[in-house]
């Protein structure tokens, strides 16, 4: 029972967007680490009205066996949207779109992980979209890399991601639903902050060569800011965990904290290079 209508203009006379943002302005973003007790690691992200949870289980034994990799852990991502997360009810069975997005998310995260530390194991990343208001695959990557850090999976760095688009001829960052739907294109991308390399890149719509390159640069810049937000979220979670909270899982948590410190240190370092 969606009653959405195309807005008259996506960019107004003052050069501001539909929702009042500047072209390169992100939506309000809240990230929180360790939100699900059942998981080995977890995180939530609210980006505008988009709301996503990510859980990590592993490294653990892989079933079915024939998927086992001898030289590294298998990174298995499952991206799922709740039926009620979109305007029309999504059918409950996983769609081909969800399966494809699961794959590109795995590719976006994998270069940041030391999967070779866990041959034959699996690391499971489960992503549940609670509310979808544009940019879900990028928000999912933002949350999933926090969940991986929370699970203590050894990482080169966190992976920030954002979508760049075009509306009324202007390049804009972090599309909302209407901008995605009625704009002229969408370029989701994810970045390794340390090297500036791209780990996710897709595009639709219509862009010239120069627009594309400019859009990618805009995205990389936005990802630097997102990376700071990610590190803040991780530090907040780290600060909250005092020794008093740990009762039975002492040893595991030691390990976890070690990894976390390393990761935070490493990711700080990266930005200096």
């Amino acid at each position, binding site marked *: *029972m969606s*009653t959405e209508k195309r807005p008259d203009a996506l960019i107004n006379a003052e050069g501001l967007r539909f929702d009042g943002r500047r072209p390169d302005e992100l939506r309000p973003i809240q990230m929180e680490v360790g939100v*699900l*007790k*059942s*998981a080995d690691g977890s995180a939530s992200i609210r980006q505008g*009205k988009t*709301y996503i*949870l990510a*859980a990590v*289980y592993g490294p*653990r034994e892989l*079933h079915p066996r024939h998927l086992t990799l001898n030289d590294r852990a298998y990174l298995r991502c*499952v991206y*799922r949207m*709740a*039926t*009620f*997360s*979109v*305007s029309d*009810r999504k059918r*409950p069975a996983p769609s081909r779109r969800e399966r494809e997005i699961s794959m590109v998310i795995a590719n976006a995260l994998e270069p940041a992980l030391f999967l070779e530390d866990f041959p034959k194991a699996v690391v*499971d990343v*489960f*992503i*549940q979209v*609670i*509310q*979808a*208001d544009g940019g879900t695959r990028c928000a999912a990557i933002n949350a999933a890399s926090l969940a991986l850090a929370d699970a203590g999976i050894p990482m080169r760095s966190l992976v920030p991601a954002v979508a760049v688009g075009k509306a009324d001829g202007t390049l804009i960052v972090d599309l909302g639903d209407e901008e995605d739907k009625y704009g002229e294109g969408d370029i989701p991308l994810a970045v390794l902050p340390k090297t500036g390399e791209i780990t996710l890149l897709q595009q639709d719509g219509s862009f010239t060569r120069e627009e594309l390159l400019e859009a990618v640069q805009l995205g990389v810049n936005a990802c630097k800011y997102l990376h700071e937000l990610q590190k803040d979220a991780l530090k907040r979670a780290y600060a909250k965990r005092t020794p008093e909270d740990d009762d039975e899982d002492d040893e595991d948590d030691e390990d976890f904290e070690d990894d976390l410190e390393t990761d935070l240190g490493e990711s700080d370092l990266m930005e200096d290079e």
Partner: protein
Amino acid sequence: MGDFSAEVISHIDRNYIADLLKRGDRVDGRKFDEYRQLEIEPNPVAAKAEGSAIVRLGGTSVVAGVKVLTGEPYPDTPDEGVVMITAELAPIASPLFEIGPPKEDAIELARVVDRGVRESETVDVKNLCIEEGRKVYMVFADVYPLEYDGNLIDASSIAVNAALLTTRFPEMKLEDNELVETGKMLELPLSNMAIEHTVSKIADHVVIDPILKEEIVQSCRLTMAIDKNDKFTAIQKGGGAGPISIELIEQAMDMALSQTKEIRGLITDTVKEAGV
């Protein structure tokens, strides 16, 4: 759901939990007829769903969302709308939930929660008719577990009830064979708000709102849906093949009856306070 992981727990745990119960204690310190702390977050999916709720019951949490669509009625009930509840054991909630098509446990969760709502006629489907034989409202309530520490059924039942209570949708009418909005927003016609209460049988004891450790060692469970008039509207024995005596069934029923008003009140109050 409980039984699928029976092999992961040792006999030691089983005996430990049973011995505690014999002394009147539960493994997490609760009384036999005491629910864990219940938190309800109304309308977390306000931008896309017509109604929604996140429910936390101790270490278990679920999100429920409601979509209201329009469609044609079934031929044999031309003046009734349609209500459908689904639930899925999404792997995000537990390392125990495998990826893949719905297993027996998932099917049971969905069917038990659905039955709790439908057998109880929580939603008055006669009031979901737009035009007899042609167009009716179709209400889909879907539940996703987020954290699993036992008793998904009650958490889901509470979440569905809360989500239905927060639901607002545009009134439609048929004009020249086309559905158009009247401009008015409607609430769902909720009649009796049955809530499901689950009791585990462990050794010779029954305890309400079991945590995962209790589910794993339980002999069976009894889920009872009770409406606002203290009528039982659905029962399901499940969660294991253990038999249960009539005396314990009676105890379980009384436990559920003793808790139902408070939980129903908490749902109603929370949604009302949120001013949805």
